[in-house]
């Protein structure tokens, strides 16, 4: 077992994920299992490689399925799935990203067979009816109002992605455009489901106190008879950005929000470590550059942070700041760009570099705390690298990042002519509805 390499005098730790077993069933279903007898919680996660990037005519379908999967199947009534799991104290939920739809059940060990059967049942026998679609469409529209339409931050992020990606399907929101949610009918839903909810497009990730052979036998019996199929993908790649893009969003806010994003590499790229370290330098704690200079010293912002966001087909490096009521968004913009310029122009100090690396190291250890976090990590590792990437390998890559690397990636990606800037501000009087 590999050891986590750490600073001198440190106690190295084992990376429990290295014991992960990967099994691919005849129908293409991938099963990742990691036995951990020390925890009372088993996390069972079903990662469907269908995100909003896989939508074509109608946006929001991947997310709509996140809802429809709880609305009943041939042998389980609508909503019973969640109720049955909750009645055993389990946590059951799902989320959709641009790349994946993830269903999870965190349960005590004796309920693992139950959730395996329940998930297999809904993949095999989901009912997509006009009746359930009608009520769930309304629920999703409420979710859209809650998270996006009535929220300044939601409007800002939606605009930022649509601005940064002009061609790639990452440009539309995961929840979908309102018109599409309203228009999604049973036929397009069935088409999406049959295209993407196939075993060769699903990864099961299971962590906790169980016997792998027993669990695999159960999965073969339940998921094993699903039929594989070829999975369609959108071919569109984002063309290179030539020139800065800017957008203003009017929203009734006392505190404007400033966003900027640059294109950055997709998940798994060799530069990702340097970009992760740059993230910490900008945003890791109250001594980080953005907090210190925008919030603490200049007192222009209420919050300010930046981060590298990895997706499967592309990435973004972004920064965001909430402007103090009464202060100027132009000043906040200037301060953020000054910090980005500094990353490009000056080498970060040794102390700052070491601090950033240490924060990442501690974050990696904290990521081992729960079964849920571990199951999440091994699923992402598998889909990004095709294997479980040992923590010591990742930590060694982080430790290898130099001040020169930070300067290099900042100069390569964080360019003035490739900025995408969104400002959420209160409407001027004449623009008010």
């Amino acid at each position: 077992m590999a050891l986590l390499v750490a600073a001198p005098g440190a106690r190295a730790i084992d990376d429990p994920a290295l014991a992960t077993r990967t099994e691919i069933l005849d129908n293409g279903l991938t099963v990742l299992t990691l036995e951990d007898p020390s925890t009372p919680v088993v996390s069972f996660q079903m990662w469907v490689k269908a995100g909003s990037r896989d939508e074509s005519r109608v946006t929001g379908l991947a997310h709509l399925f996140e809802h429809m999967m709880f609305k009943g199947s041939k042998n389980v009534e609508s909503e019973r799935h969640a109720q049955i799991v909750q009645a055993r104290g389990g946590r059951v939920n799902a989320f959709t990203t641009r790349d994946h739809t993830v269903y999870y059940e965190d349960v005590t060990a004796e309920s693992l067979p139950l959730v395996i059967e329940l998930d297999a049942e809904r993949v095999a026998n989901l009912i997509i009816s006009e009746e359930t679609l009608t009520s769930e469409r309304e629920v999703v529209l409420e979710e859209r109002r809650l998270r996006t339409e009535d929220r300044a931050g939601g409007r800002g992020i939606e605009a930022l992605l649509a601005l940064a990606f002009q061609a790639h399907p990452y440009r539309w929101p995961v929840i979908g455009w309102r018109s599409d949610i309203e228009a999604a009918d049973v036929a397009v839903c069935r088409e999406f489901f049959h295209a993407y909810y196939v075993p060769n497009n699903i990864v099961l990730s299971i962590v906790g106190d169980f016997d792998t052979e027993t669990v695999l036998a159960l999965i073969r019996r339940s998921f094993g008879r699903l039929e594989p199929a070829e999975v369609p993908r959108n071919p569109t790649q984002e063309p290179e950005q030539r020139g800065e893009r800017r957008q203003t969003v009017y929203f009734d806010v006392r505190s404007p929000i400033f966003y900027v994003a640059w294109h950055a590499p997709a998940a798994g790229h060799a530069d990702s470590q340097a970009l992760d370290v740059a993230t910490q330098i900008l945003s890791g704690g109250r001594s980080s550059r953005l907090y210190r200079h925008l919030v603490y010293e200049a007192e222009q912002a209420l919050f300010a942070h930046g981060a590298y966001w990895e997706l499967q087909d592309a990435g973004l490096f972004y920064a965001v700041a909430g402007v103090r009521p009464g202060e100027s968004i132009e000043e906040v913009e200037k301060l953020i760009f000054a910090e980005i310029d500094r990353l490009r122009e000056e080498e970060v100090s040794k102390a700052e570099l070491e601090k950033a690396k240490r924060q990442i190291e501690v974050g990696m250890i904290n990521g081992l705390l729960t079964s849920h976090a571990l199951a999440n990590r091994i699923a992402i590792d598998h889909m990004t690298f095709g294997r479980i990437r040992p923590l010591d390998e990742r930590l060694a890559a982080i430790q290898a990042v130099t001040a020169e690397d930070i300067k290099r990636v900042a100069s390569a990606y964080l360019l003035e002519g490739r900025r995408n800037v969104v400002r959420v501000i209160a409407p001027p009087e004449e623009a008010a509805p």
Partner: protein
Amino acid sequence: MRLSAVVAACFTLACSGGFAGLGATRPAWEVDPPPALESPVVRPGALTRAELPNGLHVIILEDHRLPRIVLSLDVRRGAASVDPAEAGLASFTSELMKRGAGDRDALELAKATDEIGAVLSVGAGWDEMGAAVSGLARDTAVLFEILGDVVLRPTFAAAEANRARAQRLAALERARDNAATVEGWNVVRALYGGHRYGLPRNGTAETVARLGADRAREFHHSMFIPNAAVFSAAGDVDADEILARVKRMFGSDHWQAGEVPSPGPPAPQVAPESRRIVIVDRPDLAQARITLAHEGISRTNPDRIAAALMNGVLGGSGFSSRLMSVVRSDAGLTYTIGSGFSLRRSPGPFAVSTFTRVAEVRNVIDLVIGELERGRDEPPTEAELAEARTLSVGRFSMGLETSDAVMSSLVNLDLYRLPEDSLDTYRGRVRAVTTADTAKMAKQLLHPERAVIVLVGPASELLPQVEDLGPVEVVQP
């Protein structure tokens, strides 16, 4: 017991031979669940308790699975001890404790924490204040030093107080953009008026403007006394070593017992007396927020488990609750709805909260009032209660997956002077609750006829929907 044994037992009962859609006999979800595997909450021998001569309680939980630790120090008084005119003083004081302590100013303290990858948090609840620091076990000495400085030697520099106050005032101004926050402010105001619970925990622009370094220093001095405090350490620690450090850092030589401050006056027993409606006017919103609220129960109420199970059936258990089933699953009128008690030393609110498109607000209010009435008239059935019990027991076990979580539960019990063995007895107490108990709770604790109703949305469209329900007050955010 490991899963293999459970599955083997299941197979022999032919309950799990594949799933129903593919030609099996009985699917797992139609079979009674196997008994929950109940391991002890705390591994025998892992827990150490002590009390120092100055009255400080010490709880240490050893868990060597990962090389990390969490240290914290909490006191048994919080925002409820503050006069309403100074609302926000407890959290303001907490913020200043992070802005300079011992020999370090604000930035030096942030650097000292960040450079070892540690996280320092200082905060104030209604009934407690405290500081916690987490990091790697190899940094235990530095983590102790930081915690000791923050708790015992905060600087309270005037310049930092001025910065912190300006930031708080700006944050309060920004918070007015947030519909849910403004809703919460109006709920507590409508329920508790002049009582401390009637103002936000972080205060208002008016009260925060009065706060300064000197007052925070005095307040800290009165609140952080060892005979009202609990020190805790969880993770990759050696109990003897920690105890020795605690004695050196927080023992009588450095920290003297004092007079424990008042917990603050009790909250009104009945709030509100009669139904009233508050509309916070936000003409720009397409979705209105809705809360119905009245007084709830205290953290130490002897019937709290029966009350929680009753609430679980009503609206506290997500998709398994009646409210979620009626308002979301059947009617598609919301994305989520929930109900719950805010458990404090003195009874905090009981509230049902949700949101819907503006035109449907009255429908949702009627559905919620209908479910609250049904909660009293048709209290939880045996089947509903059985699900609520297993849910409660399961959630309890799942919620204690990490030693951090176990420790915060143990500290919370100590802060409220509840029995030390409460975690060990919890599952048994849940199973002992009967339908008669939950029926009694529903009758005693649900008051839809006099609940305050707070709405956030366009007043011009909301007012006509609700004016027949009771007196309406329209306010600006």
